[in-house]
């Protein structure tokens, strides 16, 4: 563990659009920000053998995920000229159509926020110990895979 504080990224259940609006509004006081890049992951009602996805249930190895996220954050702040970076990921059940991932990167010029946001989304998908279990409308479950 580093001595720098480890931020929590996890929220229980879906992420409300209002939370996103509030996050944006809070950045109006930072007058050196020119660009916000936001990525939202939304739960799809995919057709699977035997049913349609109704929801995804997310679990994590929290301690490791937060440490990894902390390291990813530090790397990106070193690599790009960023003003701020916020990440929220759902745990527990998120119904289809709702938001489970909210990534928010701000910078003075657009290129930094756009590039960092893309890199951050990939890192979250492939480096954070989080698992999604798709719950079908016939109550069967399928473990999600990332591509």
């Amino acid at each position, binding site marked *: 563990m580093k001595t720098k504080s480890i931020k929590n990224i996890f929220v229980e259940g879906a992420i409300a659009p209002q939370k996103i609006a509030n996050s944006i509004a809070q950045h109006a006081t930072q007058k050196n920000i020119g660009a916000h890049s936001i990525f939202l992951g939304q739960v799809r009602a995919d057709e699977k053998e035997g049913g349609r996805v109704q929801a995804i249930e997310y679990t994590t190895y929290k301690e490791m995920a937060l440490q990894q996220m902390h390291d990813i954050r530090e790397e990106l702040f070193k690599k790009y000229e960023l003003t701020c970076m916020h990440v929220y990921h759902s745990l527990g059940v998120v119904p289809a159509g709702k938001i489970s991932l909210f990534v928010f990167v701000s910078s003075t010029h657009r290129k930094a926020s756009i590039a960092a946001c893309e890199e951050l989304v990939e890192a979250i*998908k492939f480096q954070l110990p989080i698992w999604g279990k798709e719950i079908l409308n016939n109550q069967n479950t399928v473990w999600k895979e990332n591509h």
Partner: protein
Amino acid sequence: MEILFFGNLIDITRQPKELIEGVADTATLKQLLEKKYQPLQTAKYFIAVNGKMVQENTILNQGDTVALMPPFSGG
């Protein structure tokens, strides 16, 4: 030593964690677990010791936390 299971591995082990003592290294632990939970033999998973991914065989000490993790699928 605490062993943690995640994702679909819990479908195999039927428990999210168990305590095991006196295992010298991660290779020995793998053998032991794959004997106890045979479907683990064909499952795809990574091992982390105290929250750090390990690729090579790694010495285990008392008090270590070992996690068995299938491919990540967050987002």
